[in-house]
């Protein structure tokens, strides 16, 4: 197993820049997820780590060795494809043993290793079956088996659950994470599904237009989004934005939104007057008739324990997640109270998050733990 270090990585296809200046470190044994919409450059980054594409610039270090320009087969990595890429003309046993055959391993040893791996994945009863008859989840396990059997430096997975049914996917998310906890292999996992990313990752990189917008733990990314894109991409429903104008001074604890005073985490930098946005997660909104921030109920989505309520305000519709018991009807006027300690502030122009007390609390906490 090994650490993966990506430095100033860049990939251009002609005029189109797929990845620009990516930098991140995946520590040994970490489960790292690259998350983003399609076309954001996450798969290209993964393919460069694998050696299936060569970068236009930058470096990739695998366990300290520069592998940037090495061929895929010289990198000692394993790759799980979205389509699994199981060889239809081989049975399960041969599929799993295929990478070992390339190493010229004696067949008795291949047999033992394949059987060990199959047991680990609980597919030992399928070894002599043809892969074409397997169910989605089992195909996935065979593909994983082919990756694990080599004991490579790291695993790379390209949307491996993308073609599975929803219920299978939840099962496999759980299984993958459990497998990772057992074998502790450095893993880079690419997906566009935030649920997969949030539930499996140690670290997430959110990408958009070839740029890493934020790199951090699932909690950091959810609670302290670095950009409006991340805030909007993560969370279901996503973060709400309310526009406000004017500058911010260091130490400010209050802003004016739609004529109402809203307490916010203490601002830690000076911002020149410009268009700003206040970011609020749906679960940080409560209904309170005393509040000056008002809106009319536009519609509700009942989810059992909670309900999502769309409220029309002067600045467009925002969504709140409130307990299911509250009775509401469309057209009702409500006051909105926001959980001050959990709010984010953004510069609308750049989309960048304004530095506030929530960031400092986080870094203090990290300093104590580190």
């Amino acid at each position, binding site marked *: 197993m090994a650490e993966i270090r990506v430095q100033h990585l860049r990939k251009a296809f002609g005029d189109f820049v797929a990845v620009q200046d990516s930098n991140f470190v995946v520590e040994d044994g970490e489960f790292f997820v690259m998350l983003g919409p399609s076309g954001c450059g996450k798969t290209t980054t993964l393919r460069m780590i694998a050696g*299936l594409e060569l970068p236009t610039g930058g470096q990739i270090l695998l366990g300290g060795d520069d592998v940037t320009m090495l061929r*895929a*087969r010289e990198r000692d990595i*394993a*790759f799980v494809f979205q*389509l699994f890429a199981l*060889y239809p003309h081989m049975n399960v046993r041969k599929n799993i043993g295929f990478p070992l055959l390339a190493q010229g391993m004696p067949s008795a040893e291949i047999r033992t290793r394949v059987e060990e791996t199959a047991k680990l994945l609980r597919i030992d009863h399928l070894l002599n079956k043809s892969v074409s008859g397997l169910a989605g989840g089992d195909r996935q396990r065979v593909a994983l088996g082919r990756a694990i059997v*080599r004991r490579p430096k790291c695993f790379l997975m390209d949307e491996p659950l993308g073609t599975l049914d929803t219920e299978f996917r939840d099962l496999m998310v759980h299984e993958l994470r459990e497998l990772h906890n057992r074998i502790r292999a450095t893993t880079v996992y690419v997906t566009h599904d935030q649920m997969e990313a949030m539930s499996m990752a140690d670290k997430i990189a959110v990408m958009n237009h070839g740029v890493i917008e934020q790199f951090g733990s699932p909690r950091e990314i959810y609670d302290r989004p670095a950009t409006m894109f991340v805030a909007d991409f993560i969370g279901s429903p996503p973060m709400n934005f309310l526009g406000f104008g004017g500058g911010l001074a260091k130490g400010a604890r209050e802003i004016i939104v739609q004529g109402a005073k809203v307490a916010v985490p203490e601002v830690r930098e000076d911002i020149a007057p410009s268009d700003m946005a206040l970011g609020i997660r749906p679960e940080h909104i409560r209904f309170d008739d005393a509040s000056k921030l008002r809106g009319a109920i536009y519609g509700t989505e009942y989810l059992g324990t909670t309900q999502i309520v769309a409220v029309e305000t002067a600045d467009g519709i925002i969504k709140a997640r409130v307990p299911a018991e509250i009775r509401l009807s469309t057209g009702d006027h409500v006051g909105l109270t926001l959980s001050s300690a959990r709010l984010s502030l953004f510069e609308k122009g750049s989309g960048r998050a304004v530095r506030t007390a929530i960031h400092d609390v986080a870094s203090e906490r990290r300093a104590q733990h580190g």
Partner: protein
Amino acid sequence: MSLTTAHSVVAPSSNSKRIAGTIIVLYALISIVPLLWIFATSFKTPPDSIAYPPKILFQPSLEGYCNLFTTRTRQTPEYINSLGPATGFCDETTRKRNMVIAGPSNFLPRFVNSLIIAFGSTFCAVFLGTLSAYGFSRFKVPLADDLLFFILSTRFMPPIAVAIPIYLMYRELGLSDTALGMILLYTAVNVSLAVWLLKGFIDEIPREYEEAAMIDGYTRLQAFWRTVLPQATTGIAATAIFCLIFAWNEYAFAALLTSGTAQTAPPFIPTIIGEGGQDWPAVAAGTTIFLVPILVFTILLRKQLLRGITFGAVRK
């Protein structure tokens, strides 16, 4: 009205099935009549073969096959009577017609020529076609579209349109009447078909298979050999049949460029007619034997051929 139309689209009614079945059976019968005619003629005696009205029922004879494989000379009855007893069926039949067997005919070597040239050129065309198709399918080839169009353009005219230049070139190069020359020629004609057919098949095979193999520690060639080829067998088989049928049946170039040692069966068979009268049973026997290899090859690969005709039917 609209209801019945919709119904017939979903599931053909028993009536329309019957009509369709009848048309197919009729068409099959019409198509097979010439073949049956040839097959029957090959077992007739020469007088039966030219009888009018044609004989549907007749006493089968192997005389046609005897005549196909031998050359004969006419002799006087006295001379024939002075010979010892006949050595076999063919000898006996020949003597009845006041002839004796002079030796083997050229049919067998011509047939062997056909086998060598047709299978040889098919192998070359499919081999080159597979590699080029793989290249076009997987790599960024400069001017790929123009090259593919150029390859296809060799099929725009009938090959025989370039017969004279090729005849002159072959004479200069010493390739006239050689098996090598014919293999090269048929390969050149077939390779364009092979590239285009196989490119379609290989495009359908996801590149993840090779990428997976290359990550697993194989070179590209090994990955190609172990993952792409096994999945392209359907396409390769279909392409091989098409190439083989062309090379096997080709008449014009063979007639023009081969006359002796490298002559193939198609230009040879008509020459039988000239030897000692119009020997239709021998011609029919030659044609019947000539049909066998293609028949066997096609039957062996019929599953692949059927799947191959519906392009892009590679399972994913």
